[in-house]
């Protein structure tokens, strides 16, 4: 039995959601295309939509339990949204426009909370924003405040419905970093919904894949990368908090050279898959200062290109053309040199 148990059905005239999930207390993902039922699951957990039948349990607290065979049973339970103690973060920050940041954060704060508002403000690094109004914040800042507001209730789980999909790259990486930090610092599980495979792979521990309202598979997030179904660019995202020195950072103790001096130990790194070069042989005199010997873990044909999943002490994805793939004659378990420029290592600090 996991920390979060969901077993629900919800019928619409043209759609049937049938969902059975066991999630742990880390960051859990729900991945699927638009219209597959991801947000409906979150709305059912939060109590905004009532499923037709089933049960929702978080850390042994029953939020919803309705028997399909008998709607009038005495032990049926359906807690109102306000009694579920669940944090909810939407695609847009949705801060209360007429309240400043401080009031927004304190809206749901309970005096008996295990964490103080000040602690949350420190963790999210928003002390300089507390007197501002939502229309005076950038997208990334507003989303950080929105997460802080959900956190201030010390919820038993935080539901996140594509929270970074409307943010620019820098803000997106920053927010992803904070999610990891929140989960680790406060031990609050997160259910993270997205249709962006890179986001899910970078922060989630366990991922449910949903299509047409049905859970197709539950995987660990690294193996989900192989699930790529479209040829949009894959972003290798790494949330790190390891030691740094000068112009380098460490991912799983592997030293990566960066263009600029690294300013903080807490950062999120992005290496676009299209900027990762593969070679079967070591390359000398090349204008790229990151080269690692690794192994090919998986290969996937995606329309006009081939996605190659490599392991160099950490997982990294490279998108290459079909032509290059044929020339290189790549196979799974082949040894491979993975090369990328330091200027393609994008860093966002938490």
């Amino acid at each position: 039995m996991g920390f979060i148990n969901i077993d629900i059905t919800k019928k619409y005239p043209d759609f049937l959601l049938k969902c059975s999930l066991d999630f742990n207390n880390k960051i859990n993902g729900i991945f699927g295309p638009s219209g597959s039922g991801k947000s409906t699951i979150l709305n059912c957990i939060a109590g905004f939509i009532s499923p037709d039948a089933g049960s929702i349990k978080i850390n042994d607290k029953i939020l919803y339990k309705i028997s399909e065979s008998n709607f009038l049973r005495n032990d049926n339970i359906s807690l109102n949204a306000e009694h579920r103690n669940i944090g909810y973060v939407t695609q847009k920050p949705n801060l209360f426009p007429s309240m400043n940041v401080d009031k927004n954060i304190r809206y749901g704060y309970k005096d008996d909370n295990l964490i103080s508002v000040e602690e949350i403000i420190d963790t999210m690094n928003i002390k300089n924003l507390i007197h501002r109004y939502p229309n005076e914040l950038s997208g990334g800042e507003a989303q950080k405040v929105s997460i802080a507001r959900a956190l201030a209730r010390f919820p038993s789980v935080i539901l996140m419905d594509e929270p970074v999909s409307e943010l620019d790259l820098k803000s997106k990486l920053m927010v992803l970093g904070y999610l990891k930090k929140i989960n680790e610092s406060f031990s609050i599980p997160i259910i993270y919904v997205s249709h962006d495979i890179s986001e899910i792979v970078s922060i989630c521990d366990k991922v449910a894949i949903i299509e047409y309202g049905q859970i197709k598979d539950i995987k660990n997030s690294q193996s989900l990368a192989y699930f790529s179904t479209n040829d949009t660019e894959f972003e290798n995202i790494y949330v790190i908090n390891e030691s740094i020195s000068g112009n380098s950072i460490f991912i799983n103790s592997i030293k990566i050279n960066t263009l600029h001096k690294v300013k903080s130990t807490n950062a999120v790194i992005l290496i676009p898959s299209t900027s990762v070069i593969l070679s079967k042989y070591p390359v000398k005199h090349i204008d790229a200062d990151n080269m690692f010997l690794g192994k090919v873990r998986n290969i996937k044909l995606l329309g006009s290109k081939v996605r190659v999943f490599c392991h160099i002490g950490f997982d990294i994805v490279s998108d290459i053309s079909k032509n290059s793939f044929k020339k290189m004659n790549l196979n799974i378990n082949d040894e491979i040199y993975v090369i990328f420029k330091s200027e393609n290592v994008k860093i966002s600090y938490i």
Partner: protein
Amino acid sequence: MVIDALILTIQVSIYATLLNIPLAILFGLIITRYKSKSINLTLDVLISLPLVLPPVLSGYFLLIIFSPTGFIGFFLDSVLGVEIVFTKMAAVLACSVISFPLMARAVIIAFDSVNRDLEKIARSLGAGYIRMFFTVTLRESKYGVIAGILLGFARSLGEFGATIIFAGNIQGISRTIPLAIFQSIQTGNDNDLSLLIFCSVGLGFLSVLINYFLINKSTGNNRG
């Protein structure tokens, strides 16, 4: 006569507006938040009827309902000993019925413009329906709601047709500014007429001006 009419008009309009506020909010919440199409259609028709019917006809319906033989009038008369027709209360009710559609429509638009995700988030943060309504729904729609209230008040100031049928044209009881203007025209009292017209135009102008600023503020607030 002019001062009496002015005071009475403001009194009647304030009472009519106060009577309408809770109803307009209730109707606004049901129509914008309750998802039953048939109930919403029924309420929409009920709200719109006084807007499309001649005010004289609305006054006539009120007269029938509240006369001692009407189904509400009979109850009020026989059980409580209260008579409504041709009283100040009748003038208030007439103004209330005629101005209600304007207020209710503005409140519906104001509630409809509130982002539902804000309400969902408020509930996830532990707010029950009442706290959510006051801290989010009403707070975020306040300018639109106030503009609606003011619009209803302004409409009450000018109400004539339903009032004359249901409340009569009695000095100090139901002779509001519009009825006093009618009286002055009938009797050829030009001095009072000019003053009454000045008061009427002044009050109407002030209400519409405040309304304009509130609506501007409301749209500006939504943009922010």
